[in-house]
């Protein structure tokens, strides 16, 4: 996902504070776009969470497609790129984010962009 695609994705969602595209295998942040400047350690921690969560599904069911983490103070969402299973889109959103809209927008963004570009 290019930085411009990540920016376009985040701008479609008023509740999204940060979007990060990561490589799950190498646990590397590939790109990020946020309303504020987030320090690299923060992005790295989010990337590690994505790698751990998306690897924690039941092995016999196939790869986990996305993981949603919600709390009273915020939401963190992790979407595997189904075309490139070792890559994922992570975002931090408000607690009351519309989950259905977010999932649809994330899936459309991941499907509409060739990650190799």
């Amino acid at each position, binding site marked *: 996902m290019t930085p411009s695609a990540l920016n376009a994705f985040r701008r479609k969602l008023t509740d999204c504070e940060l979007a990060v595209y990561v490589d799950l295998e190498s646990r590397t942040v590939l790109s990020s776009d946020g309303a*504020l*400047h*987030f*320090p690299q350690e923060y992005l790295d*921690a989010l990337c*590690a*969470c994505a790698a*751990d*969560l998306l690897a*924690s*599904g*039941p*092995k016999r*069911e*196939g*790869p*986990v*497609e*996305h*993981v*949603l*983490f*919600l*709390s*009273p*103070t915020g939401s*963190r969402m992790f979407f595997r790129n189904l075309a490139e299973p070792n890559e994922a889109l992570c975002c931090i959103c408000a607690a*009351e984010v519309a*989950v*259905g809209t977010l*999932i649809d927008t994330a899936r459309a963004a991941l499907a509409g962009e060739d990650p190799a570009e």
Partner: protein
Amino acid sequence: MNDFERLKAMLRRSARDGMARPGPVRYASWSEGLARILEQVDVAVLGRRLSFEFDDGSRLACEASGRRLVRLLTPPPPGLTAEQMALFDRDELAFDDVRAVSVLFRGLCERGAGFAMTAEPLGEGGGQVRGGVDPTAISEAAGLPGEASPGRGEGTGHEALLEGLRPLLQAVVLIQGADSSLVLGEGDEAAFVVDWVESSLKELLSPGFPLLGTLETNGLLVFALPERSGRHLLVAGRRGNLLVAAIKHCDVEATVDLWRRTCQGNPA
């Protein structure tokens, strides 16, 4: 100074300006006193050292950061039990300490009808904590009015969540500390969830997992599986207990909505 450092400096200045000044706080009941203490923890986004001197002369100092009570500072006030004294030896308080902390605070508030309070900022690094306990959890453990009563299994929110999911539940496992037990389900579906908990989930939910504290306090984790599996998985935390469930169909949005209604009091 980059943008992030400027923001941190601004927040720190703001925290200092808005800090509670030394002075008496009066309360009509222990629960009101406890609520006033927890208010101070809840607004401590950046690290703060909070000190309370109660009517009977007892003093308590603690550190709060990230809106959590991180540690109690020595010397402890007189008249504590061994369990309460042990809280002062902790490098960081953990969820298992919630009940003892709530009893300690209640006892101190019951010693009088007021306290004098001071708050001062901690230095750099005061905002970076992994442990600590959530003031809401302390409040709930103390059974404050308007909160779920303690000692009722995983709590009313979880009971309502399970009730709402009942027609779709395949299996449910309850994790309490190191122990897990199957509370609903049988056959392959039960074996599937138990195997998942033992083979992957317990490893994920180790103390090193940065979201564990938030999840255990009142959080939700939903795993969306491929459509062919015909189910999704949920881990809901409340007061240190974790409820793990396999749910028929793949509509994770409906599950999140139900959790918000039952465990968050949010109609959205």
